[in-house]
């Protein structure tokens, strides 16, 4: 405090010096910003503009492309496969959102003062979050295996004949979605625990004196006071699940009969852009996905006023 006030006192003689100082500032700004900004233009802004341009073109079979205006966008509105991919993606997102309340409950259990083994629990729960989706996919594929997977062996113990989880169109999406949700729990627990730290323990003490049980305290204190964090996790989960790719690529793959019922929009984009070399249509798909992400996020922000309380 005292230091800043002395500098404030010393400031008056500065105007004469500030001009060269400011020019020097601009020079340093140029130096400091150069690498990041070159990278920004080269790898982000230019590619984004190029994708936008390409979405109005159609690629020829031997490279090259012709301007076809809105054709790609007209095609994607009437593409039943893309519509299915969007429906699948929304299902993944809805199921992934189940992870948000689960993370909150686990975080509350861990954050209770005096709880033992918290570090061990946190490390174990965070393991999926540091594991690459490609490896997660392989491990769960093995657990879901029809004949030798632990899940069907467990089901057989109680007399249920388990399905071909990952190749049956009726179960494949739910199976992959559960893995996606599973992978996000650890991250959610950490964010939620950080959020819980900002709730004053006085609220809980007061509620306890008034005779509120743990369930009542959870819904009357934790949920409303955590609503900004819950909102943040919801937005994050939605954005990341709408862009799901890895699990589909490794758990399902191109020859799986359940692919149409499980592939996400991003996987569909990948197929068109890199396997079928249909760059123009791929670009239009990418933009339609961007539009949906923006729309869904905007709706969430509009709805937050109804349930998110900022202190």
């Amino acid at each position: 405090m005292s230091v800043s006030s002395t500098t404030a006192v010393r400031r008056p003689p500065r105007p004469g010096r500030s001009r060269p100082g400011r020019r020097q500032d601009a020079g340093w700004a140029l130096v400091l910003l150069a690498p990041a900004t070159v990278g920004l233009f080269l790898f982000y802004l230019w590619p984004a503009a190029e994708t936008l341009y390409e979405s109005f073109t159609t690629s020829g079979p031997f490279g090259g492309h012709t301007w076809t205006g809105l054709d790609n966008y007209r095609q994607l509105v009437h593409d039943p496969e893309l519509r299915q991919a969007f429906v699948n993606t929304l299902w993944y997102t809805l199921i992934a959102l189940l992870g948000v309340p689960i993370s909150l409950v686990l975080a509350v259990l861990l954050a209770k003062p005096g709880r033992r083994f918290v570090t061990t629990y946190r490390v174990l729960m965070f393991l999926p979050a540091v594991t690459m989706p490609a490896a997660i996919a392989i491990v769960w594929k093995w657990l879901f295996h029809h004949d030798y997977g632990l899940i069907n062996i467990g089901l057989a113990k109680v007399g249920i004949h388990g399905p071909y989880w990952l190749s049956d169109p009726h179960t494949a999406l739910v199976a992959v979605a559960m893995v996606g949700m599973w992978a996000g729990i650890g991250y959610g627990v950490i964010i939620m625990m950080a959020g819980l730290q900002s709730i004053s323990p006085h609220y809980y003490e007061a509620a306890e004196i008034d005779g509120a049980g743990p369930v009542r305290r959870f819904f009357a204190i934790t949920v409303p006071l955590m609503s900004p964090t819950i909102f943040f996790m919801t937005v994050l989960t939605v954005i990341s699940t709408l862009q799901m790719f890895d699990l589909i690529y490794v758990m399902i793959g191109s020859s799986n009969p359940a692919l149409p019922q499980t592939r996400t929009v991003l996987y569909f984009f990948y197929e068109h852009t890199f396997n079928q070399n249909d760059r123009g249509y791929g670009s239009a798909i990418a933009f339609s996905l961007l539009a949906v992400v923006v729309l869904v996020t905007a709706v969430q922000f509009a709805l937050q006023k109804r349930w998110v309380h900022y202190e």
Partner: protein
Amino acid sequence: MSDTVVRQAPQAPATSSKHRSVASPARARRRVRLSSIGAHALLVLAALWLAGPFVWQVLTSLKSLTEATSVPPTWLPQNPQWGNYGTSLHGGVPLTAMLVNSVLSTVLRTIGQVLFCAMAAYAFARLRFPGRNVLFALYLSVLMVPAQLLLAPQYDLMLHFGLLNTLPALILPGMFGVFGTFLLRQFFAGLPADLEEAARLDGASTGRIFWSIMLPLARPGLVALGLLTIIQSWNDLLWPLVVNTDPAKMTLPVGLAYLQSLFPTNYPVLMAGSLVAVLPLIIVFVGMQRRVLEGIALSGAKG
């Protein structure tokens, strides 16, 4: 605020408050113990659900194919098959080379990301220069563009520079990040100005101030961004999949997909290979778990 203070006042000794609502202290203690047992039961169940698959992965990786596919299954491997790891490393997929590629690309991406983001972030947070707000708005706009939108043109750039199937292709776009710039800008903006002004009066240049004063002060932010970048780079599948199709130049996530195509039904080898791929990061995480978790919480709070 005042409400809670008033309520808190009469119950000075913290323990007495707990007993007030319940008839006898002994019963209250029993209730607390019961609820604690219930909580631990739930937590153990959750930990089993979240970490159990990895235990099964390790166990399967040490079984022979016959043992892994026997019904009913065995729990512990009867005769540990360490050879599965050899097969995953040398059985047609150059997993060792991929491990080297993953380490190099992760390290270089992280250094680039932290350095370039910190430089830009400091300029945005502390320097005055013409066009600052416009440029920052440009950075922010990129924050909303999902990576896949850029994928095909970024691939073209690599093709154009002749970088496909090289290490630089794995590193280049990932060295630059807008999220990191934004995160660190918030961090620099929150640091006290006193030290900086004192150094300026002593005649230190802006570059010197950035390097010797501000960077050390911003260390928690740099570590958080670094760890997030490490996790992201190590696990990234889509970009390496697109640019590097030569197995010797692949990274581990792509390598695992490739391993799966070579050994589609040999689950012990697949488990061994995927364990090799995830173990380095798990070691980093367990060794630095406090830092990692703080970093995640920090980026969540700022983001």
